[in-house]
Structure formats: structure tokens, C-alpha cells
């Protein structure tokens, strides 16, 4: 019974690059320098700050959605969740609730709603697409219903101003994004919770038979997603200075697109935070560049659609090539 096995791990380093990620970096460089060379103002310092701020609004929700998609699930409720928590926060601040308390309450509301969707999935077998689609509709409706579609304003608040502003010359939201990136990368790679998510997405039956509490994992990822969407809602409220029922419309699709462009498989079991980070920047660069070039806003949507599908197609082709090498099929 001798085995010559290298006692060393390849895939465990936090930020190991794989082929898909290298491809994305190339795409990013092409977009960056392409827009840089042809578009006025793209390379300005101000535009870089704006890029970071836009990236943060997608990325914070995208970290959690990456976990959800790795587990083989989906969350389409992100946009309305952001809007609803933003409206809740604004109402609380308007009623002079302490700002720290109000923010915590907003995060708790997001977490509770996510937990609800996750429990429907885990304990009742409601497909996560349906559970979060229900939230998607109900939360958007609730936001408009409670505000009559009018912005909810509140008194100026020093703490929210810090969140809306820059720290060390960088938008605070971007700092939050990067800190959370580090935390999510760490959790997904180095904790039992993170690795269990990969196991559940890779083969839920096998994970269950190993004694992993699959239902609990499925609930927790949606709780996490709810909290992250609420946090995005808090940052957005700070930036806008009011709660808006119609805000973050379509954000869920940017988030899912970023995750999928980043190489996370919709079938579950495979994915990375670094990939999602790159995916977020691809989406942000495209949006920002097209706006600066003055492309017709309706046509921008067309271009975005084409680029998203092209990026995912490239990702699938790369994966297929890699699997043929690994599994020999």
C-alpha cells in the first residue's frame, strides 16, 4: 500500500489564477486601454473614483450571490432587496432613530428576508428561483406601496456622509467592497462553511452523506445574501440622501452577470471570488465607457447584452477545454 503523493496543495492558495481569470484580465486590459485611448475623460482621476463607486454597488451583493451560485442556487431578489432596505432605513432615520441602530435594523431586515427565502428552499423544496422571484416582486411592490413612489428624505447625518464620501481619497463604499472581498475569499476558501458550500454545489447527496448539514448551508447563504443586499442598500441611501422605491432596478441581473462572467458555474460546485471581482469590473467598465462615449442609452443595453453573452460563452469554451484535459471526456 504505497502511494507516491505530493503532500502539497495547488488550489488552496487564496488567489490562485486559473485560465478563465487570466482571460478576464486580458479582456479588462483591452477594455481599459481601448476606452482610455478613444474616450475623453475616461482616464481622469474623477472617473476612476466613479468606476470604483459603481463597482461597489454591484460587488457587495455579488460576493454573496457568488456563494449562492456555487451552492447550485440562484438569487434574483437583489435589486428590490436593496430598494426595500433603503426605504426602511430612510423611514427610520426620518423618525429620528439612532443611525447605528437604524443601520443594524436594516441589515437585520435583509438577513431575515434572505433567511425566509433560504428556508423555503431548504425545508420545503421551493426552487430558489421561485422563492427569490416572489421576494423580487413583493419587495419592489412593498417599497412603492409604502412610499407612494416618492423619495423618503431624512435629516442630514454625519455618519451617512462618511459612508457617501471618500476615505483616504477612495470612496468609502469601495473600501467596504474590498474588505468584504477579502473576508468572502477567506471564508470561501478557508472555513468549513465555505468548503461545505462547494461540496453542496458539487454533489449535494454526497455532502449530505458526509454529515454536512445541507439545509443549514442553504439557509445561511441566503441569509448572507440578504445582509449584503441590505448593506448595499445602506450605502446607496447614504449616497442618494434619501430612500427610493425605484432604485437599483435591474441590479440583480448585473450581479448575476458579473458572477457568471467571473467563471462561477450556474450548475454549481465551481467558482471564485476573484473571478467575480473581475466580472464586476468588466460590467462596470463597459457601462462607464459606453456612457462616456455618448452611445445612445438604449443601444448601450444592446452592447451590454452582447458582451455578457460573449464573455460567458468564452468561459464555457475554456471550461469545456479544461474538463476535456482533466476528465478526458
Amino acid at each position: 500500500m504505497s502511494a507516491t503523493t505530493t503532500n502539497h496543495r495547488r488550489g488552496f492558495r487564496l488567489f490562485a489564477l486559473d485560465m478563465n481569470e487570466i482571460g478576464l484580465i486580458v479582456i479588462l486590459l483591452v477594455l481599459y486601454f481601448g476606452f482610455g485611448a478613444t474616450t475623453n475623460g475616461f482616464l481622469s482621476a474623477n472617473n476612476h473614483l466613479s468606476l470604483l463607486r459603481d463597482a461597489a454597488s454591484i460587488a457587495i451583493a455579488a460576493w454573496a450571490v457568488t456563494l449562492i451560485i456555487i451552492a447550485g442556487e440562484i438569487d434574483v431578489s437583489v435589486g428590490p432587496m436593496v430598494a426595500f432596505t433603503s426605504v426602511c432605513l430612510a423611514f427610520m432615520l426620518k423618525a429620528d432613530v439612532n443611525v447605528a441602530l437604524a443601520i443594524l435594523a436594516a441589515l437585520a431586515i435583509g438577513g431575515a428576508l434572505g433567511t425566509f427565502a433560504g428556508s423555503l428552499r431548504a425545508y420545503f423544496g421551493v426552487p430558489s428561483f421561485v422563492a427569490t422571484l416572489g421576494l423580487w416582486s413583493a419587495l419592489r411592490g412593498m417599497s412603492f406601496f409604502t412610499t407612494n413612489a416618492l423619495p423618503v428624505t431624512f435629516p442630514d447625518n454625519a455618519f451617512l456622509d462618511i459612508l457617501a464620501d471618500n476615505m483616504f481619497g477612495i470612496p468609502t463604499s469601495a473600501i467596504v467592497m474590498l474588505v468584504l472581498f477579502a473576508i468572502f475569499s477567506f471564508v470561501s476558501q478557508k472555513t468549513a462553511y465555505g468548503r461545505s458550500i462547494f461540496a453542496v454545489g458539487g454533489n449535494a447527496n454526497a455532502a449530505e452523506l458526509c454529515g454536512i448539514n445541507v439545509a443549514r448551508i442553504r439557509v445561511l447563504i441566503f441569509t448572507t445574501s440578504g445582509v449584503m443586499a441590505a448593506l448595499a442598500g445602506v450605502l446607496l441611501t447614504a449616497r442618494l440622501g434619501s430612500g427610493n422605491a425605484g432604485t437599483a432596478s435591474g441590479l440583480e441581473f448585473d450581479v448575476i452577470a458579473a458572477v457568471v462572467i467571473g467563471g462561477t458555474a450556474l450548475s454549481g460546485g465551481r467558482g471564485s471570488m476573484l473571478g467575480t471581482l473581475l466580472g464586476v469590473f468588466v460590467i462596470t467598465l463597459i457601462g462607464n465607457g459606453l456612457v462616456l462615449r455618448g452611445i445612445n442609452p438604449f443601444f448601450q443595453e444592446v452592447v451590454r447584452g452582447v458582451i455578457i453573452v460573449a464573455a460567458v460563452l468564452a468561459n464555457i469554451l475554456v471550461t469545456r477545454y479544461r474538463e476535456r484535459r482533466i476528465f478526458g471526456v
Partner: protein
Amino acid sequence: MQTARKQDPQPLVAAVRGATKHYPGVLALDDVDFEIRRGEVRALLGKNGAGKSTLIRLLTGATVPDGGEVTIDGAALTGSGTQRTVEAARLGVRAVYQELSLIVGMSIAENLFLGRWPSSMGVLSHGEMEHQARETLARLGLTLDPRRRVATLSPAERQLVEIARVMIGEPKLVILDEPTSSLAAAEVKLLFKAVRSLAAAGIAVIYVSHRMNEIRQIAQAATVMRDGKVAGTVEVADADTAEIIRLMLGRGEQEDRLVGEARGGDAVLSVRDLAVPPKLSGVSFDLKRGEVLGFAGLLGSGRTELLRAIGGLDTVRVGTVLLGGKDITRASYGERVKSGIGMTPESRKEDGIVPLLGVDENTVATDFSKVAVNGVISASRMADAAGDIIRRIGIKTARIDTPVGTLSGGNQQKVVIGRWVYAGSRVLLLDEPTRGVDVEAKSQIYAIIRQLAAEGKSIIFVSSEIEELPKVCDRVLVLKDGNFVQEFSAPGIETDTLMAACL
């Protein structure tokens, strides 16, 4: 052994002549001749890997022989790929497999005519379809309403609908693969009635089964396969069970035994009056420390239900399960894992491995906390733990993080066993641990099982390959129709007596 026919021979429906089939490392069929005539019901027997499935695949056109020829109703099969199966189906070959293939959301009638629904000018004619369906069911002596949805049918009724489906479009040869394995006794009667109707209509039936009492009721002759050859064809009326077992096993090559005599210490696992209606009626046994206990039994004998109930995958409603004196009858699967039970599933790919994750993560998945420091998985601890299991179990892998999906079946199975060794389980429930692995890996797995027993682990070993049991087991309990019918202890465990007890 040639069958002497008493009556005028009916015309041949199917004939296989001189068929040979190689698979990598295996000679699946070795110069096989087989014939079946109109209206005949022929039993087909043989151990796992004897060549039954390959023979069936030749007849359905799913496999092309390397040498020899297959003739259906006088016409030799010539095509390859799917063309060949279409050809065989056109000539009248139909097969019903163990896994049912009905669409449960549709009606019986829609299932019978699946994809060939009667229609006029593109519009389905439900009346016509139901009329034809009713006629077809009646030919089999069935009175099911063709409008009923399959979802509302019992397993037995589904099996019968599956058989009714092969009646559509003039079948000549119908192959039934262990059709009674999921049926209760009363339901078997219905099935036999249907099979007799087929035979009376001049259809030839190949009936794969190992239940001698069924074979005696339904078949005239039995063909026994062994090691890719036809070991013999006997008239069922003249043959006794011992002769059929002798044909299945061949004359004894000496088996390598890893067991001297039965050993074992105190009882670790005690099961009392455990029942899972309707498949398992009140069984009791003790599993001792350091003992390898085998469960023998045919497909459908209740062994799957027993293992699932002990492991906690199904709720135990009747009886008690004690682990080390502690009552775990009501404990969930997760709680049983924590108290020291480890289970390896029979379908390794579907339920065993996470193919994309490495050997190391597949191993430590049973207990991440053992390789974590303050909740953070330590790469070096995980490497040490996985490396230790890889060495102890003898897993052949290039790296410790090689995706398990890329390993051979035998090494995947070792990972699935190894994870419980890592978790420190006291009792291992191994469900078909050698299924689909090569000969060398099989003997390695036997050795691993004995080694673990020597280290004091208690093991329940379930295998449908009966000849494996004498090699590794200290004791074997034979399950039949949901009851233990006999017990054998080493060194007195013999394949032929075991098999006789199962049939």
C-alpha cells in the same frame, strides 16, 4: 448441455451465433450461442459480470459483437450505433429494465404511445389512443383505466404498464430484467399473468431473475451464463437448484480467503426487531467489535432497506438500534455520524464523491473541525490528515488535491471509505463497495476491510456478488423476503450454500 425438445420446434425468434465481445481488460462474451423460439419463456441466470447484460445488449442492438452474428426473426443485425438499436426494435425486440422509464405526469395511454401518439392532421386523437391503450392492456389481462396518470400507480402497476408498452407495434422478443425485484408477492402474480399472455400470443420472453421459485413457475428452460460463456441450458422441470448453482459457480477454483475463523469481541451495534414495512419484517442481530458481517440476499430481499434504516437515512418506526449500548433509534443521520456510524453509498458517482473537489477535501468533508484551527481550515493539517488516509488506505493519486472525479473507480471508492476512517467511525456500513471496480482494486478493498476490522472497527458488508462474502466476512446473514433465513460463520461460509440460501 443441449435441450431435447419434446414438441415440434416452433420457429426461431432470435439467434446469437459465435458471439464474442471484448471490453478493455475483460472478455465479456466468449463464443456464445443462444437461441429462443416463439412463445417460449426462457430464464437467464448468472452472477454479476457473467455476461448476461452483454448478451441482452447484443439482442437489443445496443452492443455490436466483435465476432459472430445476431439474427432476429431471420434477419441479421447489420447496423452500428443507434441505427442498430432502431433495426432491432423494428424487428421486434423490446426490453424492460429495472429502472422504470415512464413519464409520471402523463396518462397510461400517453405513456404507451410515447412519441407515436395517434393523430389526425397533427391533432392528437385522444379517443383513438385510449381505445387502443385499453385493448393493449386487456391483451395482458389488465383492467387499468388508460386515462389514469402514472403518478397515481403503485410500483407494480407501473411495472405492468412498462410491459404493456412493449406490446405496442408487434413485438417478437421481450426481455424482462429482474422484473420482480421491487414487487411484493401478490403483485408478482399479476406480472406472471401478463408474461403468460405474452407467451400465449407467440412472443418469446427472456426473463432475467435468480429467484428459483419464480423461474419454476414461469419458465420452461433456463440458460446459465458464467465467465462470458453459456455454462448450460437446462429444462427447468428436470433441473434442481443445486445443479443451477453448480452451473453458475463452476467447479471450485480455490478462493483466496482473508478470514481464518470468526472473530469479534463485544457487541457494538445491536439491532432488535427492526421492521420497514413492507420490505423488511422484524430483524435482529448484533455486530461485534472487529467483526466483518456480511448481508447476503437477492435484489429486493430487503438489504437496501435494512442498511438505510441502520444508517438513519430512513426513519425507523419499528424496532430499536443500539450503538455501544446507546439507543440511536430516533437519532437523525447527522447524529448517527457523530456517534460513530459511517456509511458508503452503493452509487458512488451519484451519492459518494464530489467530483470537482480534491481527494483531501473529499476526505475531510466528514469533519472539517479536525483540520481547523479556531475555525480556519489549516492547509498543512488538511494535507497531513489526507496524506495519512491516502497512505493507510493506499489511494493512488498524483496529488492530494487531484479532483476525485479523475481517479479510477477503485480509488474513488477508497476515498469514500477513507473519509470515515478519517472521521474515526466505529461502525462502517459498506453498501456494494466493490461495484464497478476492477479485479485488482477489489482485492485491495477486501484487504482494507480486513485491516480496518483488525484495527477494531466493526463493518457491515453488503454485496450482490455472493462469492465476495466468504473472502472477507467473519459471519454472513442471509436475507430473503425481508427476513433473516440463515446464518453462516467463518470458516464455514461457502459460496454455493450461501447462494442456495438466497435463491
